């Protein structure tokens, strides 16, 4: 019990609850002092939630060292598990080791994906027949909206988990550049997730994850908690990206030139460039709606109050929100998929026993996608009513994304070509990822030409398209990565049989789900509707989507069982179960507290599988006698 209450997580939550109550109390006091009625739910909730999240960060201890610095106290770096507590408690407490933080991010990410997936299971059941069965229109809208944003949060955490764990290991850094900032970045996502989930309970909201005003300006109270939650997750994303870019720029091992970095590091850099520079825009757009509701600042409100008209204020513009929102939220999909595509490129050579085809082209294609991705946002607005002359330039930039994406696909199949391929579970998921991302990629260009998009926009075709890009670009590669690096994290092997079962349940089901979603979209099924017209004749397809969705959900439960069971009962893992050349596989499993005993030296190319006598790194180099270029 004492251990339980000493956990940072528990202290954080208790502190969040207390400070939320204090924040609400302050709001009441201010209102009374202003002569207003004491209680109004929305200001109290917003002030309480905002202060409560900060309270969590104090309670969990993510600010402790910085506060000590202010007082001029020393804060020596802590290493290893806590001395007086069980080792597992580190995962529930502020810890500065990037490997711990990576696991914290990953597990929290999976938990959020699980919550979001469960919501989908509820409304998919509802959608398996026309009419409203057991949900109301309001609960459907809340679940659908929360499914979207909780998934996005889960994906961002999963991405951060993979990058945090892997990048320092791959470049031979002892840790991330700013370990305390790293811990802060993880822990701030916890109150954020609590806010979003509590938003579902306190009123819910009915706008989808996109939160377009004027609808979001008049949505129930839950939307304010959703806005604040996204705000804090965005903060985490920005800080994590900053940390990663500095780490890669400054902390590479001797000899690790940019074009000798593992390809996943390139993908992480591209992703971080987007996250560092674009996330502010979604935070801004949500913040503006938040204060429009709270303080009456009519940024996006076309209907002015008589007082505002009398003052000569110009009306607000709902389209402005969409521009700000999509300026982040389109590049955001590249934040989700670029690391996944990096994992595909990383694993293919290992299981094909062959160099990665066109390493530099793949690295550059990631950067190109990231940069072009900044110029395509308005393709979400072809029907929105923006200036008509803007549609064509955005159509061209959107179609251009197909070029670097094509380079990746062609390079992947060329990597497989004439390889010696084995099909362990991670490789199966990589191949599944390519096939699923192919569906997502190929269904993109019809949305890029305006003419066809006028039919496709806001239909289930789009739902099918982006679920395929998210599964192919994130979910499948993320699962591949989990299986691939599981032995390095836990020191145990997972069950191949269960891994393969997971794959063979999930992949065909996903194909069915996505393709059928696209077909009913073409037939007239709209997005985000709680009920559909039986006259569309899509009843059988709806049932098929629901069944496929449930099989996918069940297959993920198989994975979770596999990971949990194998943690205790799996076979002891060797250091390098896949015969990988990557640095992290040259040290014991599980990876020791200080990953490398001394900095390694990069002496060769990362993916020279099949080149006699070549090595990528020498793990115990004689640095003093190394070639000058490598120092």
């Amino acid at each position, binding site marked *: 019990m004492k251990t339980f209450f000493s956990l940072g997580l528990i202290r954080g939550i208790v502190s969040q609850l207390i400070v939320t109550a204090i924040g609400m109390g302050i709001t009441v006091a201010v209102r009374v002092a202003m002569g207003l009625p004491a209680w109004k739910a929305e200001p109290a909730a917003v002030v309480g939630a905002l202060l409560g999240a900060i309270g969590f960060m104090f309670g969990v201890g993510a600010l402790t060292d910085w506060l000590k610095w202010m007082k001029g106290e020393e804060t020596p770096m802590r290493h290893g598990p806590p001395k007086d507590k069980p080792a597992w408690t580190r995962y529930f407490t502020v810890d500065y080791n990037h490997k711990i933080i990576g696991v914290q991010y990953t597990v929290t990410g999976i938990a959020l994906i699980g919550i979001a997936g469960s919501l989908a299971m509820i409304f998919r059941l509802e959608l398996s027949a026309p009419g409203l069965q057991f949900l109301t229109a309001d609960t459907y809208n809340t679940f659908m909206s929360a499914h979207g944003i909780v998934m996005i949060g889960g994906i961002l955490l999963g991405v951060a988990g993979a990058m945090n764990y892997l990048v320092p290991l791959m470049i031979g850094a002892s840790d991330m550049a700013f370990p305390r900032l790293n811990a802060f970045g993880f822990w701030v996502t916890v109150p954020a997730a609590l806010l979003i989930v509590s938003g579902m309970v306190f009123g819910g909201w*009915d706008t989808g994850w996109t939160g*377009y005003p*004027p*609808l979001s300006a*008049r*949505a129930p109270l839950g939307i304010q908690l959703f806005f604040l939650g996204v705000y804090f997750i965005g903060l985490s994303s920005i800080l994590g990206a900053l940390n990663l870019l500095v780490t890669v720029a400054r902390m590479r091992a001797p000899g690790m030139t940019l074009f000798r970095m593992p390809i996943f590091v390139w993908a992480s850099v591209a992703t971080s460039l987007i996250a560092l520079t674009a996330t502010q825009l979604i935070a801004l757009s949500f913040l503006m709606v938040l204060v429009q509701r709270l303080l009456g600042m009519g940024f996006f409100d076309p*209907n002015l109050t008589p007082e505002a008209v009398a003052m000569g204020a110009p009306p607000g513009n709902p389209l402005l929100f969409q521009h700000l929102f999509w300026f982040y939220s389109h590049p955001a999909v590249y934040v989700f998929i670029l690391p996944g595509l990096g994992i595909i490129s990383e694993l293919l050579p290992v299981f*094909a026993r*062959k*160099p990665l*085809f*066109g*390493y*530099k*082209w793949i690295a550059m294609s990631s950067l190109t996608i990231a940069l072009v991705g900044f110029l395509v946002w308005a393709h979400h607005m072809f*029907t929105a*009513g923006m200036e008509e002359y803007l549609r*064509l330039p955005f*159509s061209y930039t959107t*179609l251009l994304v*197909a*070029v670097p994406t*094509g380079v990746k696909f*062609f390079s*992947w*199949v*060329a990597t*497989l*070509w*004439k*390889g*010696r*391929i*084995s*099909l*362990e579970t991670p490789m199966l998921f990589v191949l599944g990822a390519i096939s699923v991302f*192919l569906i997502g990629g*190929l269904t993109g*260009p019809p949305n*890029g*030409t*305006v*003419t*066809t998009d*006028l*039919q496709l*926009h*806001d239909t289930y075709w789009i739902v099918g398209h982006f679920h395929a890009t998210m599964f192919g670009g994130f979910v499948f590669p993320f699962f591949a990565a989990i299986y691939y690096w599981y032995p390095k994290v836990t020191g145990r092997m997972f069950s191949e049989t269960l891994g393969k079962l997971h794959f063979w349940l999930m992949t065909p089901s996903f194909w069915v789900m996505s393709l059928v979603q696209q*077909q009913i979209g*073409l037939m*007239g099924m*709209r*997005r*985000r*509707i709680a*009920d559909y*017209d039986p006259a569309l004749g899509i009843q059988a397809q709806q049932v098929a989507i629901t069944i496929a969705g449930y099989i996918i959900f069940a297959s993920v439960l198989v994975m979770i069982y596999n990971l949990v069971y194998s943690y205790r009962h799996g076979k002891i893992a060797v250091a390098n179960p896949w015969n990988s050349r990557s640095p992290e596989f040259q040290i014991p499993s599980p990876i020791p507290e200080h990953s490398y005993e001394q900095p390694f030296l990069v002496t060769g190319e990362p993916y*020279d599988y*099949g*080149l006699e006598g070549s090595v990528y790194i020498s793990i115990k180099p004689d640095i003093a006698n190394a070639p000058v270029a490598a120092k």
Partner: protein
Amino acid sequence: MKNHLLNVVVLVGIVTAATLALLKNIPLAPVQASAEGAVTDWLFGLHINVIAFLFALIMVFMLYSVFVFRREPGSLETGEYFHGNTPLEIVWTIAPLITVLYFGYLGAVTLKDITSPGQNELVVNVTGSQWAWKFEYPDSGLTSNTLVLPVGRTVKLEMTSLDVIHSFWVPEFRVKQDLLPGVTKTLRVTPTLPGEYKLRCAEICGRDHAYMVAPVQVLSASAYEAWVNSQVSEAQAAESAPPAERGKTLAQVQGCLACHSADGSPGNGPTWAGLYGEEITLADGTTVTADDAYLKTAIVDPGAQIAEGFPNIMPPTYGDVLSEEQIADIIAYIKSLNE
């Protein structure tokens, strides 16, 4: 090497043909009912051809490699050692670049096709609100809840919203345009096939978004004339009708009944059945009698006195949309529901 490549090339051809055959034989669109739709379907068909080819190309190369270049797990065999091929990389950068630029060009040309004004356009004003559609025909002064259109004549839809963003979409017409509050947006459709369709709101607009649907009828030119004439004479007859009758018609076409039921059943707003003269508890706890003055305020300034338990979602624009007489007619209709 030659052998493997040849095998793959043949397989890519076969799989492309098979994929295309499959895609052409499953329904990928509802019936096409507009001239714009013909253009859209043509371009979409072209996309499908490219999709089928690229799908076959990547899948065949991948699956062929997986089946033919196989290794037992744990075996230390290695694949053929090659790093890349710059000419090949350039080819598969340039070829897709040309393809997408060509598609961009086709997209531009077809967009011009489907947005250019037609001759002798019929103008229809479309108004969306939570969760109802209203169509006004400036030519004839008609107002309707059904979008009735003549075949073969380009219709210029002038669209606006009273509250949140909605989106005009008739799947059979293949075009879509959002309706924004405060501004008017234009969409052109040229119906080509007489029949009955449905207008479906495509942008999430709150609780009853799924049910924001309106009937659409495309009629032959003569049938459309007949419809206009009958509606005009009905409207004339209605003008001499008692106020409560006129109010009933107004309540239907203005979409009031989408939220306020006339039979006591629950809705997004208070039911009108038995409302007149009742004591109403407001959201701030005070009470008010539902007399003429209150009902008028509730119509022109709905946010002023919100009834307890109902959301403040009614558009505040009816003061501009309705004349004094029309408001009086609607109140007369509400009154008549007490009897």
